[in-house]
């Protein structure tokens, strides 16, 4: 467990970092960025894996299994959707992307 104040520092700095990164983003990127940050919190998969890896009761294992399923869905789905959206942002000379 991380000492209370150190955790507080990390929370604060991470919040500033996130805020500053987005601070001046153009409207055109709002939706892809929402999707991209959706992907990033897919890191919850790691937590779910740890929870399942430490589970010992049947109930705990079941809960962990569902959590890993959901976390994996978050990460993989977030990646694919973001990648598809961003793939379409290209400068002059790009060819039509995949059909909708």
């Amino acid at each position: 467990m991380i000492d209370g104040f150190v955790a507080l520092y990390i929370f604060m700095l991470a919040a500033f970092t996130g805020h500053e990164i987005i601070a001046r983003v153009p409207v055109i990127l709002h939706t892809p960025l929402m999707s991209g940050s959706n992907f990033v919190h897919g890191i919850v998969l790691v937590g779910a894996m740890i929870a399942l890896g430490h589970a010992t009761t049947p109930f705990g294992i079941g809960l962990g299994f569902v959590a890993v399923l959901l976390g994996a869905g978050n990460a993989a789905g977030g990646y694919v959707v973001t990648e598809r959206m961003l793939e379409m942002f290209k400068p002059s000379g790009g060819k039509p992307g995949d059909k909708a």
Partner: protein
Amino acid sequence: MSWLPTLVQACYFLAALLFILGLKRMSSPRTARGGIVWAGVGMLVAVLATFALPDMHNRGLILAAVLVGVAAAWWSGRRVAMTAMPQMVALYNGMGGGAAAGIGAAELVAQVQRTAVAVPDTSPLRPESWALDAVHQVAQLTPVALGLGVLGALIGAVSFSGSLVAFAKLQGWMDRRFVFPGQRVVNLLVLLLAVLHGVMLVTGHLTVPVIAAFFVLSLLFGLLMTLPIGGADMPVVISLYNAFTGLAVAFEGYVLGNEAMIIAGMVVGAAGTLLTQLMAKAMNRSLGNVLFGSFGAAAGGAAQEIAGAQKPIDAADAAVMMAYAERVAIVPGYGMAVAQAQHKVWEFAKLLIERGVKVKFAIHPVAGRMPGHMNVLLAEAGVPYDLIEDMDDINPEFPNTDVVLVIGANDVVNPMAKTDPTSPIYGMPILDVAAAKHVIVVKRGKGTGFAGIENALFYADNTRMLYGDGQAAAGQLVSELKALDA
């Protein structure tokens, strides 16, 4: 300290770094494409490292769950239509919230077991079914960790059920807005009850029934909070839940002592909150108005009278007008998305460009139903982004533009936003297309836009209406233009 945990820690550090760098790249159009790849590498590194953690059980189950989850999401994400992206984001975001809530639940239940072992005779109410055959070797959670774990679970559960409702609405499975009198009071009560149970969990009433009630109430609140919100406001709501999930992940990361989760979650939590505000601002609304307002209901009051009539034009004339113009601006709106007309529109624009016409696409920040909607569609059709102009850049150019082709846009070109103080869109900045020499509007009939109001532009002297479905009309324009050269 052996080398393996250190290596895993290093991998987590690398992942956090790559997430931040990836998001940074994603927030600039030039580098956006690479950004998701950086973040993806970070995720891969973190997941592989977790497999290598020394004290993990159930490795087979974990692998199975990861593979199934990844495969299902990958497949659905690949094959879904571009226009369905917002609901897919909602779905995946809900999954993340659910996972965070699940972690919270698992930790709470484990804590119940540990407490039972520590003071075996003081918890007679504990159901016997929670066998204590194998008790965690981990120490008890500190009060701070317990509190953050409960908070994360609450937020995660709300994000889970709320996102699923958002998904269902956008998918068209749940068409009506679900409104009843006293709704806000009920919602508030449910939230208070959920918080109350959370406080009980932290203050020594950590039993399985309380845990169960806590989760039911949290999920219920997410449901109730989202039901009354209209489909068109969903992108903002999804962005809010996205920030929620980020926070939930950060808090559960604290419980697990995992800094990568804390940092990634917190970065998303902060970035998502700001993004939500920016989105609401781009729609000229406040976040509170989106969540609790009743935008659609208020519209349709005492509308300004509009003089004149709509003057139709046929595709042949419209094509000729643009073929011999010097400058043409194309203004797409929600109708282009509905008609999936972007490919045809770009085909038409390319033909004009070949003839030497200077063509620009003019994009209003909230055209369509999600921020950047038009940009995504045009990019999909292959329109290079240097032909695409923001509202602020193109507005001064309309007086020098010969023809503006409005295709499926309505509210974003409605001059009443400037002239009629009673209009629900009064004050929203618009694309000043009326300043151009000629305006051609493609729409199916006299249908109103999102705000449900009349549009004086359609009755203006220099406006001609080209009625028809967006895709069909664009197709006609293309053929007429080709016929000109033949």
